[in-house]
């Protein structure tokens, strides 16, 4: 049975699309069949980050409106044969998405893939709510700074009230992914510490992705960072996070770009 995962944050620019691509690719590399869906109608980015922007013919709205079939809209990744993309429309806006339409698309995708990863837009309005509506699990991407943490808390509140699972009295499995973490700035006290973030959000930690120039380089060449440079610190962090998602007990570390130097932070395992 497929798992629908929503990558959301509330705050914009924290790394949702980067994470969707990186984790989607990492899961596909391990043999799972993965579909990543871009819910950011009008401001689509997932196709750029995956290097598929020149092959987009049909999009999520076309499928919802019945103009195209799902198989016509899905774009297969050229590097990983089990990774597929359902892009968003760039010319329409979020009002074209309906609850019912999205429900049937997700249902069809559940039958075809092991993982359906929904890249949520920023904010708490319709687009973000629709992206999370049918999720079984959620990845809340947070930067270790005050506004991001508060926005993530808001989103967690919405995950517990506006999703189908919440309405049925069930729980959406939630994980925090801390991105753009800079250990030196944290040591100087310029960033909120990991412990404080987790204390405020009271949600288990899936991984810590360090700040790195590799992320920008990867998106410029249209590749998820886990594929373009798998030895880089963020790639290793994403690969660990993907393994934890699948249930493997991977000890929590913050990979650094310096060779041979691993910061073993605490003996805490991800829940």
């Amino acid at each position: 049975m497929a798992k629908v995962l929503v990558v959301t944050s509330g705050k914009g620019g924290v790394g949702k699309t980067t994470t969707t691509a990186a984790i989607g690719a990492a899961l596909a590399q391990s043999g799972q069949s993965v579909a990543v869906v871009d819910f950011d109608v009008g401001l689509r980015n997932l196709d750029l980050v995956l290097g598929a922007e020149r092959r987009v013919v049909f999009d999520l709205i076309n499928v919802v409106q019945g103009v195209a079939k799902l198989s016509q809209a899905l774009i297969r990744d050229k590097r990983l044969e089990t990774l597929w993309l359902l892009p968003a429309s760039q010319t329409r806006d979020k009002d074209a998405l309906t609850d019912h339409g999205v429900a049937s698309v997700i249902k069809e995708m559940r039958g075809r893939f092991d993982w359906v990863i929904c890249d949520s837009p920023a904010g708490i309005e319709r687009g973000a709510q629709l992206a999370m509506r049918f999720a079984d699990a959620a990845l809340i991407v947070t930067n270790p700074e005050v506004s991001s943490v508060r926005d993530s808390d808001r989103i967690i509140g919405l995950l517990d009230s506006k999703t189908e699972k919440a309405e049925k009295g069930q729980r959406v499995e939630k994980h925090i992914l801390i991105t753009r973490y800079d250990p030196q700035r944290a040591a100087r006290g310029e960033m909120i510490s990991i412990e404080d973030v987790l204390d405020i959000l009271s949600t288990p930690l899936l991984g810590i992705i360090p700040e790195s120039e590799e992320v920008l380089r990867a998106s410029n060449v249209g590749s998820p960072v886990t594929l373009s440079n798998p030895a880089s610190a963020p790639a290793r962090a994403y690969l660990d996070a993907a393994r934890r998602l699948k249930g493997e007990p991977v000890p929590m570390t913050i990979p650094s770009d310096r060779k041979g130097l691993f910061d073993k932070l605490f003996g805490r395992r991800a829940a």
Partner: protein
Amino acid sequence: MTTAIAIRPQQSMRFRGRSFMAFVLAPLPPITGWLEELDKWGCNSPGFFVGRPIILDLAAVSLDGSGITELIGTLGERGIRVVGLEGTDPDSLGPSLPPLLKGGRQSAGVETLDTACEGTPQVVAMPSQRQEPTSLLLENPIRSGQSVIFPAGDITVLGSVASGAEVVAGGSIHVYGALRGRAMAGSMGNARARIFCSRNEAELISIDGYYRTAEEIDAGLRSRPTQCWLDDRILSIAALD
């Protein structure tokens, strides 16, 4: 709906909260059919609506501003006075329409409307009043943007109250975690209510309308377990450790 203001220590204007019970009428489409049903029931129980405030729940029908005005007028002809609306888009309401209400709670004691128009009206007796709970216990943290309102008594939270969240109680508030949001106790006019927390990082605290923002709270009390109470109309805060 809830309190606010009262500038310390000068007392200028204070708003209080009060809760009333009102019946909700929820029309179903087609409206003409629903009005017929209502009339059938009305001949059963004439005068049922006299003096009762009625809330109109428009969630099942789609009416614009003029449609709503018309419906309210039609109901008015039948002696039904609509004091508030639910389940509709605030943008479609003009200033002459009753206000949009939110956060209505289910109330014990429901009368069913039986449309059998024969002889004595068939109104089911109100079920015996259940003991209404006077305290609310919440085991999960209160997330940013969430608002917990419980005018009937105390609220106890077994987690933290996030920044940007608010807890409003008619009685006292007990937070066994960090209080990072707003806590407003004694909202129905109870000056003896108190606020307790394991870790004070509150944005705003208020008892019976008298409030203080984080700015006005002594920095030495931050991050400590504290209690707040009203001492002769002055909001006092002290550490518990």
